[in-house]
């Protein structure tokens, strides 16, 4: 079976080529909203959904991106798998520029071959499956694409094998069902099989468990990781929940990247992100993660405004300074770059740049405010097209 053709012993890391599986360099995805007659004479507004992100994903790698709604994590994920064309920077697949390949057809691999190696599982599994098709029909499409020579009987056997593998039995019963006859967890598994049948190198899983019940989450994440190991697939997970990101990355030795307004502000191993967070925003996300120990009452959030600033008009300097409890005057007009604090840990906050940094001499802007959270000084974070 070609599905297993590239699977080696899961104990051994896959042989590393010189180039990483996916490499993003200074990727920018800027959305411009100047469409519509009414906006003809007004200035076009730009939303920087992703702004200058560099990230490398290796073979058998697991990376989880965490952040609030609207921080650009899904857009970055789509850029990484070639679904969203960046407006700046480059995305390379095994050293080959994806979008140059699309434009000129240069390089050893064709654009469709690259795209086939990079798959996605959507956030809402119900919406991602065609309601008029049975599970069998849905799963036949990737097999016909990858292995057109397979006979109908072999195809059916393959589908049954995969359904059993994700613990949906009896498979002959499940193969004949329509998506609405499946539970949310089962729909998610069908979407997962569909992606795996394309034999991908990287799967983008956008909030794969957040729609599921709490008791099903660990089970589904275990299944994802089991298949990740068996098929030697890399995973890019997107989540707003650090607990889930921790589970997925701690089990696989992966990394967690924290995103804020289109930028990665901190990235490191789960241990570094959870037990030694450097960026104040990472600490906010940790505060927001509920603890089972209820002995301490929930306090005020460690941020100054609870609404995210308007992405059309993002704050100057460090973008987090409008909400940061540690911000100083220096942060309002200087932008920290992502710097390494250990081999695996990188952070963009002046507080981590040494005691001699001028940040420490700059007056705090947070202490001048009387309340712990103030009014959001920005216009609402909404769709930019309406104004």
């Amino acid at each position, binding site marked *: 079976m070609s599905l297993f053709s590239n699977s080696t012993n899961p104990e051994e890391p896959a042989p590393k080529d010189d180039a990483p599986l996916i490499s993003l360099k200074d990727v920018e995805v800027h959305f411009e909203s100047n469409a519509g007659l009414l906006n003809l004479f007004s200035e076009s507004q730009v939303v920087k959904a992703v702004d200058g992100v560099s990230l490398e994903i290796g073979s058998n790698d697991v990376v989880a991106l965490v952040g609030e709604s609207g921080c650009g994590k899904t857009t970055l994920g789509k850029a990484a798998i070639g679904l969203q064309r960046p407006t700046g920077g480059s995305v390379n697949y095994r050293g080959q520029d994806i979008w140059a390949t699309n434009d000129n057809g240069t390089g050893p691999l064709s654009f469709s071959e690259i795209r086939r190696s990079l798959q996605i599982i959507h956030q809402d599994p119900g919406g991602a499956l065609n309601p008029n098709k049975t599970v069998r029909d849905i799963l036949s499409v990737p097999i016909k694409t990858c292995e057109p020579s397979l006979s109908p009987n072999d195809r059916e056997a393959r589908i049954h094998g995969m359904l059993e593998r994700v613990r949906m039995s009896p498979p002959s019963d499940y193969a004949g069902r329509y998506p609405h006859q499946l539970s949310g967890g089962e729909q998610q598994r069908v979407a997962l099989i569909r992606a795996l049948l394309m034999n991908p190198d990287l799967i983008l899983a956008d909030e794969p468990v957040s729609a599921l019940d709490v008791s099903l989450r660990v089970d589904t994440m275990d299944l994802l990781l089991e298949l990740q190991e068996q098929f030697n697939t890399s995973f890019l997970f997107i989540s707003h929940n650090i607990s889930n990101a921790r589970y997925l990355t701690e089990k696989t030795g992966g990394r967690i990247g924290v995103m804020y307004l289109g930028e990665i502000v901190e990235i490191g191993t789960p241990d570094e992100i959870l037990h030694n967070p450097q960026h104040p925003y990472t600490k906010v996300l940790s505060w927001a993660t509920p603890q089972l120990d209820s002995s301490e009452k929930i306090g005020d959030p460690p941020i100054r405004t609870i609404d995210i600033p308007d992405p059309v008009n993002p704050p100057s300097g460090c973008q987090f300074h409008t909400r940061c409890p540690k911000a100083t005057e220096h942060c309002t007009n200087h932008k920290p770059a992502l710097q390494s604090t250990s081999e695996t840990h990188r952070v963009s906050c002046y507080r981590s740049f040494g005691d001699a940094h001028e940040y420490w001499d700059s007056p705090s802007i947070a202490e001048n405010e009387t309340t712990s959270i103030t009014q959001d000084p920005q216009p*609402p974070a909404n769709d930019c097209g309406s104004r």
Partner: protein
Amino acid sequence: MANTEPYRTPNESNDTPVKLELRDTSVSFSMDRGESRVLDSVSMEVYDGEILGVVGESGSGKSMFASAMLDAIEAPGELTGEVVYHTGDGETVSVLDLSPSELRTLRWESIAMVFQGSHSSWNPTMSIRGHFNETLSYHDFDVGAGMDRANRLLSELYLDPERVLESYPHELSGGMKQRALIALSLILKPDVLVMDEPTAALDLLMQRSIIALLDAIQDEYDLTLVFITHDIELVADLADRLAVMYAFEIIEAGPADHVLLDSSHPYTRSLVNSTPNLETPIEKMQPIPGEAPDPVNVPTGCSYSPRCQLADERCRTEDPPMIDAGNAHESACHYVEHVDEEIPLSITDVTVQ
């Protein structure tokens, strides 16, 4: 345990009055396949001024529990039993016997409700101010004084009243809409606020911010809160008491820290063990095998028995009643005393006094 305020144990101190109670309440739907009982003889008291968290997975009947409190079960669903609301000055109201107009008054002015998914609660063609105005004038409240209250409520929920009131629902982010909805639900000064998954579909930071705000306004407005969620850890530090639902029944209820960290029901313990969190070693997080039952075909005896590792013949035939587990804590399990030995909790370094 470093609890800042001592927990009032309602059953032990008789001076905490009951605000709202369900007595033997059931909701059923007739279906082709048979009768579907989506709330099964539930009795529950909500004490004045407390925050009651109701936790259950999808399809456990928790939304039916919320709707039953306001007699808001839609046909063809059938609600039986008793729902009693205590006004606070000695009077009791039997909610299921109210006329439609009395029910309308009760629903906003005594008990308000915030539903899941704020987008469907707002009229997209009306400004936020319009919603406040309409609600106030429909209930014959003074609009001027009411709008002052609206301004105050919105500010307390960290919204800019001027800007929010002039906006249409689509101009606000999800978190802002949900907070504005909480303000709207409190505009007619209800005593009780019932919230069905009020923070679902928001990111975790906004969910927790809303919970911190609820904790603050609950005190200030002297509210009784019923917070319904599928996420047990979300309400862990907000709720005074927790009730856990499984298969259309309440299977455990008690002080929040006891239910979480010293629970007396196998389901709750397994649920706590299966919840992803930051403290538990990951190898100790275990999923619960099996699935929740179909409402048409609930197992005989204890409804959790097919999934329970403690289940024996008695569990499969005899439905356990709520059994006192001490400390105002009740659990519907025949083996209440053995649960803690048989199913150790994975959060080991935390103890309950």
